[in-house]
């Protein structure tokens, strides 16, 4: 156990801090906000490109993909420096973290060149087409069908919750290619450009506003997709899902730790009750950092333990929810104004920090629902960590 990082990791951090000091966008430039998770304002496109060119966008990648072959611990301090400044590397986070990452792991050379690199360089944006009306927590039961026809696949079906689809250039789409195989073994992954005939995107509002548009329904009617757009092997889509989401899960806890740490700055307790609640917030933030760094140390040794990450996701997402509810309460009737900027703002962050406390609280439910609901996490812990028998 140690409280500090080794000198080589600290040297890496210092180099990144130096880069940030020289290249950080100015707040006056960052006035233009993104309207969805696949909409990158011009200043942020430039910022992402600067990071890509300098090898700081995804430091774990090789240089041709915006990195410098950094170790896991170096990637960790890199993310800590970004979060300390409430800075997003990209305003198309799923494009970077899931779609480009999947293409680099499972894609062909041409797919990396034609899709991954443009996503990483902020020339295009991407959305993730996984969930369907009948396939949420039970993702493997998805029914969108892709049938081979000559050099193409013909896709029919419907996706939902496809964040940012209406602003995205391409959707990484999970489709059923073998309806007769067991449900996990008949799934494949296709890159579907959103301007393909037969693709219809219908964004719909959140509870915050009919104009708060990130969710989409995506209808696919006889969409012809070149077979060259198949990512990974035919019927091996479940491996792609686990690979790309597995990488995401290793670091997912960090976004919750960052929100909790931001809240320790944004919340100033003024009564005994608020001090009591602040203590819980500070303890949760510290505990999550500690547990996360333990998981990271394990992963760095090659002993990744995916089920154990469920405890981090559960603790992190529920703590954020509790803490934002308390912050909303502390703001009192002032927090009724909507839309309003009743909470501290973070112009460099893609998240909706610029909004009010009610928005921040409402958004905490993304943490307890998306990426496996809290109920699913509890079941994973009970079954796969604690070894309780299945029902």
């Amino acid at each position: 156990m140690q409280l500090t990082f080794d000198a080589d990791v600290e040297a890496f951090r210092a180099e990144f801090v130096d880069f940030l000091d020289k290249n950080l966008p100015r707040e006056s430039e960052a006035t233009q906000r993104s309207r969805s998770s696949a909409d990158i304002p011009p200043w942020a496109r430039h910022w992402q490109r600067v990071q890509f060119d300098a090898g700081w966008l995804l430091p774990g990648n090789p240089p041709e993909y915006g990195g410098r072959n950094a170790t896991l611990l170096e990637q960790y301090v890199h993310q800590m420096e970004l979060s300390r400044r409430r800075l997003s590397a990209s305003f198309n986070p799923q494009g970077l973290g899931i779609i480009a990452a999947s293409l680099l792991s499972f894609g062909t050379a041409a797919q990396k060149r034609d899709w991954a690199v443009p996503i990483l360089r902020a020339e295009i944006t991407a959305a993730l087409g996984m969930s369907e009306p009948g396939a949420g927590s039970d993702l493997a039961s998805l029914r969108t069908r892709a049938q081979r026809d000559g050099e193409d696949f013909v896709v029919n079906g419907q996706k939902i919750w496809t964040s940012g689809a209406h602003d995205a250039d391409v959707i990484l789409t999970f489709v059923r290619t073998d309806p007769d195989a067991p449900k996990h073994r008949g799934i494949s992954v296709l890159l579907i450009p959103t301007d393909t005939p037969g693709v219809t995107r219908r964004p719909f509002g959140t509870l915050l506003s009919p104009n708060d548009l990130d969710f989409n329904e995506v209808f696919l009617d006889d969409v012809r997709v070149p077979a060259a757009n198949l990512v990974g092997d035919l019927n091996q889509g479940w491996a792609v899902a686990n690979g790309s989401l597995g990488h995401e899960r290793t670091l997912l806890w960090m976004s919750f730790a960052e929100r909790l740490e931001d809240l320790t700055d944004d919340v100033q307790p003024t009564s005994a009750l608020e001090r009591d609640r602040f203590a819980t917030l500070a303890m949760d933030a510290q505990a999550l950092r500690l547990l996360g760094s333990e998981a990271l140390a394990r992963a760095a040794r090659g002993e990744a333990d995916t089920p154990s990450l469920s405890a981090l996701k559960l603790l992190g997402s529920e703590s954020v929810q509790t803490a934002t509810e308390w912050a909303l309460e502390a703001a009192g009737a002032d927090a009724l104004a909507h839309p309003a900027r009743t909470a501290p703002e973070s112009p460099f962050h893609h998240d909706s920090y610029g909004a009010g406390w009610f928005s921040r609280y409402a958004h905490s439910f993304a943490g307890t629902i998306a990426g496996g609901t809290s109920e699913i996490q509890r079941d994973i812990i009970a079954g796969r960590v604690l070894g309780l028998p299945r029902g």
Partner: protein
Amino acid sequence: MLFEFDSDQRLLRDTARDVLAKECPPALVRDVAENGADPGPLWRTIGELGWTGLTDPAEMVELGIVLEELGRAVDPTPFLATSTQFTPLAPDAALAGRPAAAVLAGITARRDGEGWVLSGTASGVLDGDRAALLAVVTDAGVFVVPASAAAVTRTPVFDPVLHVAEVSLTEVRVSGSDRGVADPGPAREIALTGLALTMVGACQRIFDLALDHARTRRQFGVPIGSFQAVRHKAADMHVALVRARALAYFAALTIAENDPRRRLAAAMAKAAAGECQSLVFRHGFQLFGAMGFTWENDVQFALKRAKAGALMLGTAAEHRSMIAEEFHAAHL
């Protein structure tokens, strides 16, 4: 920050667990509770293993590992009081193999010539009735007195294995050479962290027993651990435990490295252990059904140790009330 045990620490944990499974089985704890059996042989084993020698604060993580395992075994010896309450207050007076305790409040010191005179009564002194030496905290500093100078009465408490005593000092004269540490603050952090780790161990024991029960107890033709209502309680207990354990070892690490966050970390450790205890006690007891309510079931010893720990040295709520201020002081 790299927050995982190194190989030596993992070995210490495994060794402690194995030794205590043999030397401190549930049957011994029950024998102590029911028949007043002497835990002396276990105390000597602890000495032979070198655990009483873990007195350097730099070894706080190692001491913590031992304390967690002892908590899990519901240790009937005076190790907790000796190693985390007395020794940090009076490191130079510690005697190998001799139990010792700390009197943390209730005693006043009056200057008298070259020395002081100590008087007063303290209740709730952990292992005060079986200590050879007492470290007495007063406004004038910490003094070390032989227990023979005090009037000591064991107080019956709900944890039948725990020793708690009332200690009275009447005009006990001490000299300037009987002093412990100048500042009892750092010693308090060790005491809090040690108690937190003991509680984490006791909670782990409750959890282990409850999980075994949930796997084996069958109702409606299936193990009760297959019911979602039970599974989700178990998941919540797991999260509370890993959170409390992480914060307790973080406190141990800040003590070992004399990090400026140690006051904050110790308060967090004790608060989180108290919160963990609250949840694990409730769910653990509940999952056993009526069987948990019997004298015969060994879960009672761990339940009581965890609950007793929560009540000593400040409750979770008392520590939470200090954390906001400590947090802002530590993050300036």
